[in-house]
């Protein structure tokens, strides 16, 4: 059973209760100043953004095939079977490739720390394992953010699209993008108008590098034989030339 978050922009009133609950859960300071920030940062792992009269919410998308987990050289990012993509700070060496590679620009860094960590939403992995909803879903007063089983939430999203076709842009964001994500969006307007990336492929991004990495064993085996062969031939040619030269 895979856990998923459904964020319905049409139901969001921009109260930022999710931000406050998230900060509390991570023991991060949260005041008016932090609330006014619209970017993710080391002290703000989810953010409500305003686009005209529409709201949007930024948080880790918990991709089905996460780019961050694929690029991390030490395997500090892992996709759990429960759904959340979790981060192991004890492994991380701070190369920040996850930040460069994330298609949603989610992982953030503790730039001003002397022992810095990457930070990102982990979909309240500990709470979810205990059967509780995420802190943001629990705090949301309107039901704009809900959390539950993926199939059930997809069904719920489709039901809303069908029930009020005039209120919704008739798509669910997160079903196909980069191979699907564990955070789904509904919106009244096309998704790029609420700040979501729509230029991403439907294929998981890790395939792009895996195709090349797969070739490594071939390069090693074919390369060794080829180079060894070239060495043998050129060396042998010299030996023969020398031997023939000696005879004359």
């Amino acid at each position, binding site marked *: 059973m895979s856990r998923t978050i459904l964020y319905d922009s049409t139901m969001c009133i921009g109260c930022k209760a999710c931000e406050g609950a998230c900060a509390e859960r991570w023991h991060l300071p949260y005041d008016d100043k932090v609330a006014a920030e619209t*970017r*993710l*940062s*080391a002290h703000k792992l989810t953010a409500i953004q305003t686009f005209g009269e529409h709201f949007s919410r930024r948080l880790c998308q918990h991709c089905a095939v996460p*780019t961050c*987990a*694929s*690029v*991390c*050289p*030490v*395997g*500090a990012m892992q996709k759990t079977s429960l759904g959340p993509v979790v981060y192991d700070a004890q*492994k*991380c*060496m*701070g*190369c*920040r*490739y996850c*930040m*460069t*590679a994330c*298609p949603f*620009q989610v992982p*953030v*860094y*503790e*730039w*001003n*720390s*002397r*022992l*810095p*960590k990457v930070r990102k939403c982990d979909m309240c992995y500990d709470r979810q394992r205990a059967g509780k909803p995420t802190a943001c879903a629990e705090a949301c007063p309107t039901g704009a953010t809900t959390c539950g089983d993926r199939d059930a939430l997809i069904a719920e999203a489709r039901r809303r699209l069908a029930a009020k076709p005039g209120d919704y842009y008739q798509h669910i964001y997160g079903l196909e993008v980069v191979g699907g994500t564990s955070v789904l969006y509904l919106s009244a307007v096309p998704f790029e108008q609420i700040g979501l*990336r729509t*230029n*991403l*492929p439907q294929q998981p*991004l*890790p395939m*792009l*590098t*895996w195709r*090349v*990495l797969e070739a*490594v064993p071939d*390069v*090693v085996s074919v*390369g*060794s034989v080829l*180079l*060894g062969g*070239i*060495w043998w031939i*050129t*060396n042998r*040619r*010299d030996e023969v030339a020398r031997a023939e030269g000696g005879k004359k």
Partner: protein
Amino acid sequence: MSGRTLPRFTIWRAIFVVLMAAGAYATYLRVRYGLGGVTNLSDQFPWGIWIGFDILCGVGLAAGGFTLVAVVHIFNVERYKPILRPAVLTAFLGYVLVVLALLFDLGRPDRVWHPLVMWNPHSVMFEVAWCVTLYTSVLALEFAPAVFEKLGWHKPLDWLKFISVPLMIVGVILSTLHQSSLGSLYLIVPYKLYGLWYTPVLPVFFFLSAICAGLAMTIFESWHSSRAFGRALELPLAAGLARVLAMLLMTLLFVRFLDLEQRGVLGLLRLNRTETWLFGLEIVLLAVPMVLLFRRRVRWNPAKLYGCAVMVIFGFVANRLNVSITGMEAASGTHYVPRWTEIAVTLAIIALGFAVFRVIAQYFPIFEERHRDEASAGQAPARETRANERVPAPIG
């Protein structure tokens, strides 16, 4: 020579001292205040010049080592042997400095060894980490004969000679892998890297351009060594490399434009954007020396040859900075200009490279003539000299 206690004052030494002092202060700030205190990096732009220049350019410019090892010992073109050892030394120092630079850039440099024990074979960075570690070890072994000769240690020399051929083959393969993999790092950001640079064949371009940079660097380094040590430039060899360089540059530029055309993004060149101009700069810095180096007159003129090598090096650097910085800026929604401390660390590392090369070249048998002189002067026993004449010295 006699009784001088203080090193002679020269402008280069003064520059060196200033750069090292600035670098040392920047290092202190880096340790004291973390990455945020000394860099202009941000969550939107997490990789700056320490990755784009120190790592991407550093590794590429050190490619002369494996290229010449392949030419001399695998393809057996023995006439290039006199410039092999300096090229291997350049490569070895290059890699050591790249690792040094990496320690500045990593958030947790104390964990630089983590990829060696915590595996993720799906990560290009993991592959690069392993290749760079192994290849730096290979380079140390390839350079070791110079040290052992100086010290007169014959047992390890014989041992190195015994493993030299497999070692060289491993070195060439590791280089092929990680030179191209530095390009593969960017395959995962098709939506971020600007169309003039993002291409599925990025690893091939990185590999080809690294060989060009390695050859240019070998010419550059030969020219400087000849001046520094009052030796004649091995002009026939440098000119020979230059001819290969010209052909490789032509291949590189041809496939790059073919790729742009195939992907249908040539139209981007008509846009008046920063990317277009910096792409143009990169291409000009590679195309001009290519055209010039096809002329024999240029190849056989030390000053002009040197000028072309410098242009290729700059063109290569422009390419790497374009991929890692110029091409990534638009999608990041921010503007990155390195802070003085980032530049200070980078310059100090370059200065350190030049200085250490000079010192090593002074005290160890790096250049063929010196090497032979010492051998015939009886510093190496007759057995060794014979062995050197009969079999090509293992690696260098």
